[in-house]
């Protein structure tokens, strides 16, 4: 294993202070001004990538908006352009009706929001504590750091399979709770209302590492002399945390929480593999509901309307994220 304790690559701190394009890029720009550049400007190098983004993301985005206004099913799919136009009917059905499996989009939305907010609240302190515990060096730190990474590195479909097994009637969780005399060990976790908690537990396990990685990366960017100065002034652990670490980490922590909320909200794989379809309604998160509506009930129009509702909701945290990134880059240049 190549030195797992190795510090972040040198130049990283400098790079992040520079912003994404850096100052060097700007100075090069003068050197390669059109007319001076001996090789011309091969802008066409970007076209294949842009074409992919257009065909796979931008066009479907537009198609999705259009489909959401149609009454489209598996029969009209081949001629989807001429499917009956129903205006906003899909949207009203998504918000107020229930599908034949019993979970309306609105209900799923509440499950999704509850799930994302709760897991984010749970993983934040775990991730922060983990990062703080391995920041300073000690014997075996590399091993602990590697261990902390494991939940993040596990493919989600494997974590979901493991979660399913652990929460089976005779699985690890029930056996463990029984051994500790907390329950009688016969709880059904994968059906009914308790499935929500099974989902939260497995997702917490699989996602705290992300917060840990972000925070650890952020800790490495805090200048050591701040702590040394604080120490000379006689500051203790708590004061260092409260006066230096947390204020310095505010931006990266906010970003980590924002990204993980987005990730939780959009997590399809975990509930899909863990519960199968149709899922129990307590665990029927919005992405899963959209999938079932589209590919099991073949209500393509309704599925698209639910997708657009999701997108609109995601625009709010997405915009905040976007702003944060832009701010991060302009601030550091000033």
């Amino acid at each position: 294993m190549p030195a797992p304790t190795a510090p972040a690559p040198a130049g990283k701190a400098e790079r992040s202070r520079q912003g994404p394009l850096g100052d060097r890029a700007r100075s090069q720009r003068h050197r390669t001004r059109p007319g001076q550049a001996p090789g011309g400007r091969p802008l066409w190098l970007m076209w294949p990538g842009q074409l992919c983004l257009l065909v796979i993301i931008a066009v479907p985005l537009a198609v999705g908006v259009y489909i959401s206004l149609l009454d489209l099913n598996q029969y009209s799919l081949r001629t989807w352009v001429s499917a009956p136009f129903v205006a906003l009917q899909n949207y009203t059905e998504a918000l107020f009706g229930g599908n034949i499996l019993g979970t309306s989009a609105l209900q799923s939305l509440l499950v999704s929001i509850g799930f994302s907010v709760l897991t984010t609240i749970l993983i934040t302190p775990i991730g922060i504590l983990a990062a703080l515990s391995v920041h300073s060096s000690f014997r075996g730190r590399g091993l602990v750091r590697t261990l902390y990474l494991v939940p993040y590195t596990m493919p989600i479909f494997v974590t979901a399979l493991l979660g399913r097994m652990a929460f089976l009637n005779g699985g690890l969780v029930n056996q463990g709770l029984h051994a500790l005399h907390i329950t009688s060990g016969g709880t059904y976790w994968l059906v009914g209302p308790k499935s929500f908690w099974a989902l939260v537990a497995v997702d917490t396990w699989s996602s705290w590492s992300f917060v840990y990685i972000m925070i650890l990366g952020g800790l490495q960017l805090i200048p050591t002399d701040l702590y040394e100065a604080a120490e000379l002034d006689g500051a203790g652990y708590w004061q260092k945390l409260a006066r230096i670490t947390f204020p310095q980490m505010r931006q990266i922590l906010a970003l980590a929480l924002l990204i993980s909320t987005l990730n939780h909200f959009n997590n399809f794989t975990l509930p899909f593999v863990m519960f199968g379809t149709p899922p129990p309604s307590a665990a029927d998160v919005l992405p899963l509901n959209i999938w079932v509506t589209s590919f099991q009930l073949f209500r393509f129009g309704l599925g698209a309307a639910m997708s657009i509702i999701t997108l609109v909701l995601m625009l709010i945290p997405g915009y905040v994220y976007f702003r944060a990134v832009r701010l991060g880059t302009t601030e550091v240049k000033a």
Partner: protein
Amino acid sequence: MTRRPSAQEMLPRPVRAVVIGVLSLFVIVPIAYLLLLSVTPDAEAGKQLVPSHFAWGNYFSMWGTVNLLSGLLNSVIVAGLASFIAVVLAVGGGYVITRYTFLGRRSYLYSLIGLQTIPQVMLLLPLFVVYSSVQTALHIHFIGSYPGLILTYLTFALPLATWLMVAYLRDIPAGLEEAALTDGATRLTALRRVVAPLAVPGMVVALVFSFLVGWNDVLFASVLTNNGTRTVAVQLQVFEQAQQGGALPLYGQLMGAAVVSALPVVLLYMFFQRYLIGGLAAGATKA
């Protein structure tokens, strides 16, 4: 006078020991359970914690029952080709972005971030419709084929790969290429012969992250593959669904297959973790 804590220490030692102990258990217990399940006889997996004997045979019989080899091969082909193309395109794009100024350069970079916040599940259905239109229009078999899936993964890997390459290429001095250009090389030759070899470490990291996009995906593969092209993720999911309600669910073999499909990914991350920590923080704030 009390001993002052070392400047870098964030937690008092006893607290640190407790945190490390608890979190290590939190990680190790489920992993140990996964490994234990993979050697538990199918009849006992999910019913009792301690198997009556270790069924090492799971690791042999699973290849036939789960159809694991075909899943792994499909994943390697699809994720491999998608990540390779994504990196090639990202190097080209990143090179242009770091070396030239042009209208929309900055907005292009930022739109890459914007694209990443779009929920993938909302693109699945329209993409399916677009693909099936292509199928009908051109009379070709596209849904369920490799190219459809590769095109999808390569596109979703592209934003991160481009950002990684921008960050890397920026630090390669332009003087080197200019020397080559003065000697009469074309821009493309300079990129291929001078810049690309220097950018190999960055390309490897971008390749790994792009590869994982395809390897870990279930959403697109659940709709865009068929029996023959299923990636390992969907292969396991389908197999698991088939076990539910079966008389004797083959959970032991299933978990053996899960271990085998997770292992390469976990090892890849371990190998590249120095780029991950810090890189992700810098990358995620900036990419």
